[in-house]
């Protein structure tokens, strides 16, 4: 039952005006530009693009500004905006092997072809607040450059697969399911699971990945390889009929190497957990890879005992835009619902009181 509620318009419009004012902050300070956010908060931009499931650095930066830095709200804004745009088609699958690498590390091999390239990383920093950053206009040293070594940078998983120690991925021409077109259904195929995880909430993925390490469906992972860099996106316009380059996007890829005790048809070998995300997001890609591997439990004949291995639990709760929508909808008027609950409770309490009086009388 709905009861028309009117009378909030003036309050709402005043609330919005105040919201704008609080976004701007102290007017004596210069206003933050979208370009500044895009350039100087690149990791926030990357996260919003990943969770908003839409690669556009400027739009993500604008969303961050509009959302006053609330990254889930910003991802929501980006997701909403994408629904206003037509879909031209789908890209060719990214060739991450041909990535223009900024960072590439492996925790399984010290010396490997292509080497360990640290790139612009926070690893090995001391996590001490740098007060020099509080001073404006301080000069930063330019990053050094060195001769680029020749030679290929092969995948670690490929090195293992060549020895027969790494399970090969199933590679067919199957058309993957698309969550933007069809709702999630179970059992969910791996491509759909990967799409779901790729846009999942980083905190949720991190906590689930962490839970697998702490024994909830442990899969004993090693970081086979993390790659951060740029890949070319190719697309075949229907009117041309051949693939053209749309440009480059930044991505992060993580290949987790996990034990697998083998099955009746397969010898003991390593298996993969895979993480891929827009921008520079190592924590995100690693967490995704851990959860991807945990979700493969059933197909690898492992017992499903932990939350991270439970398809419905993981895939239904990973999306922070759906989650925030359902949690925050509790703020909306539930006056009628609540009146009925109240009525119910009063009736029960009255009945109990009557019974108690009767018992006392007897």
């Amino acid at each position, binding site marked *: 039952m709905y009861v028309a509620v009117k009378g909030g318009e003036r309050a709402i419009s005043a609330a919005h005006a105040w919201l704008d004012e609080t976004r701007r902050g102290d007017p004596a300070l210069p206003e933050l530009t979208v370009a500044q956010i895009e350039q100087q908060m690149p990791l926030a931009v990357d996260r919003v693009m990943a969770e908003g499931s*839409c690669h556009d650095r400027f739009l993500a930066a604008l969303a961050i500004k509009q959302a006053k830095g609330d990254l889930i709200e910003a991802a929501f804004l980006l997701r909403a905006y994408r629904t206003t745009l037509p879909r031209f088609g789908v*890209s060719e699958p990214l060739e991450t092997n041909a990535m*223009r690498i900024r960072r590439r590390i492996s925790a399984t091999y010290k010396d490997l072809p292509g080497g360990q390239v640290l790139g612009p990383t926070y690893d090995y920093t001391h996590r001490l607040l740098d007060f020099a950053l509080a001073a404006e206009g301080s000069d930063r040293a330019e990053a050094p450059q060195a001769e680029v070594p020749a030679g290929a940078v092969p995948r670690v998983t490929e090195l293992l697969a060549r020895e027969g120690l790494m399970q090969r991925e199933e590679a067919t021409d199957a058309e993957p399911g698309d969550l933007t077109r069809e709702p999630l259904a179970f059992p969910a195929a791996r491509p759909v699971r990967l799409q779901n995880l790729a846009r999942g909430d980083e905190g949720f993925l991190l906590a689930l990945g962490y839970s697998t390490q702490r024994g909830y469906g442990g899969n004993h992972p090693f970081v086979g390889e993390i790659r951060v860099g740029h890949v070319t996106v190719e697309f075949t316009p229907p009117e041309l009929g051949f693939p053209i380059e749309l440009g480059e996007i930044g991505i992060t890829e993580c290949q987790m190497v996990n034990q697998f005790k083998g099955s009746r048809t397969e010898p003991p070998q390593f298996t993969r957990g895979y993480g891929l995300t827009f921008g520079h997001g190592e924590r995100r890609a690693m967490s995704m890879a851990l959860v991807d591997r945990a979700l493969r439990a059933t197909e690898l004949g492992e017992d499903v005992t932990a939350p991270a291995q439970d398809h419905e639990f993981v895939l239904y709760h990973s999306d922070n835009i759906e989650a925030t929508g359902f949690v925050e909808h509790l703020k909306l008027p539930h006056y009628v619902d609540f009146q009925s609950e109240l009525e119910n409770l009063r009736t029960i309490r009255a009945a109990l009181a009557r019974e108690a009086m009767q018992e006392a009388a007897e």
Partner: protein
Amino acid sequence: MAVLARASGEEIAALMPELPAHERLRAPETGLVMVRGRAGGDGNAFNLGEMTVTRCAVRLGETVGHAYVAGRDKRQAELAAVLDAALQDPARRDALMAAVIAPLATRQTASRDADARRAAATKVEFLAMQTTR
């Protein structure tokens, strides 16, 4: 087209002050392309997420030019479509390649090289450990 896809509309326009007269077959329009990855890097394809793309189609004399470029720069898409058509004309091709494409390509290569050189400087040389022992 790969070079034009990586250049901004402003950059292209600066190298091509006189835009040849053309007819818009499809005005610049922004939409989305679903970007795909592969499970494990080399397995079955999956949908990673979308990216904004702007397309444009023009007619230049008898020739049709098409452009699809990452992002929402409509000027870039239109200039790329015009150049796509113009570059199919053998009479204009060499001049345009030299005046527009080559300088953009040089700039892009320089930026990519600088990135690769910065990455190379962060490559770990484990041998250094042994020499200090």
